[in-house]
């Protein structure tokens, strides 16, 4: 695994978040949530800092990160695309929509495009089954998405 060196202020940010949770090991999940919301992902070096601050092992932190699918060690794109694969969305063609996103952006699930603009992820039910199949880009929700809509959705963000 190639090592990246974290910037001083990133390390400080992580330390501050840990401190907010009183550096308690039992708050590990909350710390990971906060850090990911700030940094977008949880690379190895970040996990090492968290382990040190919470006085736990890196293996344990990594164990939690890999257990919950919400946590990711891969940087998210500027516009994270999530395709719902819940039952309702799935039966109404979410897989074809997903395949179209993969084809157009030339990335697999969990990866980001080379320019860092987009990343694709799958999730399980956003609670909008009436709109199935559902796609979210960042905070924005798209309903009844067909593979033919994919190009248009991507275009919305291309020049941002």
């Amino acid at each position: 695994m190639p090592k990246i060196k974290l910037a001083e202020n990133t390390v400080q940010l992580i330390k501050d978040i840990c401190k907010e949770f009183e550096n308690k090991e039992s708050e590990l999940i909350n710390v990971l949530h906060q850090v990911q919301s700030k940094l977008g992902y949880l690379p190895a070096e970040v996990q090492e800092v968290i382990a040190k601050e919470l006085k736990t092992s890196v293996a344990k932190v990594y164990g939690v990160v890999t257990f919950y699918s919400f946590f990711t060690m891969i940087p998210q794109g500027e516009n994270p695309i999530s395709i719902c694969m819940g039952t309702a969305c799935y039966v109404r063609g979410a897989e074809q929509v997903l395949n179209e996103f993969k084809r157009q952006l030339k990335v697999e699930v969990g990866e980001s495009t080379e320019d860092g603009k987009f990343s694709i992820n799958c999730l399980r039910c956003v609670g909008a089954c009436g709109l199935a199949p559902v796609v979210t880009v960042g905070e924005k929700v798209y309903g009844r998405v067909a593979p033919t809509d994919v190009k248009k959705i991507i275009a919305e963000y291309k020049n941002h």
Partner: protein
Amino acid sequence: MDIVNLTIDNKPVVVKSGTTILEAASGVGMHIPTLCHMKLEDLNIENKPGGCRICVVEVEGRRNLAPACCTDVSEGMKINTHSMRVINARRTVMELILSDHPFDCLICAKSGNCDLQDMAHNLGIREIHYKGEQSTYREDTSPAIIREVDKCIMCRRCETMCNEVQTVGVLSAINRGFESVVSPAFEMNLDHSVCTYCGQCVAVCPTGALTEVDETGKVIRALSDPTKTVIVQTAPAVRAALGEEFGMEAGSLVTGKLVAALRRLGFDHVFDTDFAADLTIMEEGTELLNRLGKHLAGDKDVKLPILTSCCPAWVKFFEHQFPEMKDIPSTARSPQQMFGAIAKTYFADQLGIKREDMVVVSIMPCVAKKYECGRDEFKTNDNPDVDHALTTRELAALIKLSNIDFTALPNEDFDNPLGESTGAGVIFGTTGGVIEAAVRTAYEVHTKKELPKLDFEELRGMEGIREATIDFDGLPIKIGIAHGLGNARKLLEDIQAGKSEFHAIEIMSCPGGCIGGGGQPYHHGDAGILKKRQAALYTEDKNKTLRKSHENPHIIELYEKFLGEPMSEKAHHLLHTEYFDRT
């Protein structure tokens, strides 16, 4: 204390509240089978994830079966430990475990010693009804330990040892569901991690998922090479455990048979690591007295307490975890390495052979010794002082392979000059032993008086952390002892915080010391075996005529003819070492 009345298999039982069904049943002679559960009495070690479900029992009035290892008894409980429903459930659980387990039992390193295999046998599994995907994972080979994660049943025993007992924190369960495995962070290999190779994960693994690196093949090759002089050293703890591999009672002392077996295997000279343990005491004891003398003379820079340095896993532990304290441990090499250094200089000279033509094999209760003998600082021109380190288990395998009827062997004596040892060298194999040996010599050297009594009961025992004050003729010497790296960590943190008042601390990585080493015959969760091995070493010590390292005549001769005196330049070059920051 509240009392609970219940029946187990129709037998009335009275136990304290808070007792588990498993414990209550064992009290009335019903040994409910367990796989993930492990409790090492006296060492305060327990693994109780309630994960495998082999120990389920039927509790009248309860809808589902209860895991006996983690269900407390309650008043009026009626328990059946072997009803048809229970047996069917256990078999189903076992079949499901086996459905994702490789079927290479016949050629598995753990065959014959495998808890999973025994359990499948005891449950009478003859067929596996569940066919499905098998999880696969790459094999991870390090200098000492091999991980074959395909064989892991997620009992989490290794995780408990690595995290709670040793506080090394290398192993953790990662990923989820079918993909979950026990692994170092970021799925790195062990040799990139902070693993100390203490081998306690290997000692408790119920399957072949964690085993030592097998070097018996290399030793057989060396023994069959006529151009090589192959010599062997055996560590103190080996003689108190090897017999178990041949069906002998735990705690049987087999020193004489061990020597006879090694001679029959074809080693040219059969020597004793205990000799090197005596040598260690000469060096480490002198270092202790030197530091103490400076301290008493008011030298503020001198580092105290001095920490023992015989244990390679302990050395690697502080190099990773406390690198800022690497000038506190004694610089004395471990007995294994002292032996190798003397064998390939002093003894090779006596034989008139080159070091390259000598092969030094060590028999160790330890898997970390495999790693230790490969460390660069213990090599000259790329030739290691110790070529191969075998565990007690590997030696047993070698003896069986060579058709030697171990129990029928006569008692034989070690060869000289590197086979003579005192009782002080023998007790190196147990927690408390190294420091007791050091005290015996340091006392007499410092006070120039003979010790009135050689048995220091206050230094012995199985408590994880022990302390005692020994009166050096008016000078109180404060001694600390820790076994298990978690306990060592506590003492180190005290030193870091400036709270430690000890002059000397003995540290051994494995619970119980080397008698409980990762390379010893498997204890299968019975810590009573460790106590018996410990008692055996103290017996051997008592039976020795010489019990103080500085009285070993061959040690005296070694200093007269070769080394000069303890801590001399030559001794420093051959018998001392340095430590590295591994962060």
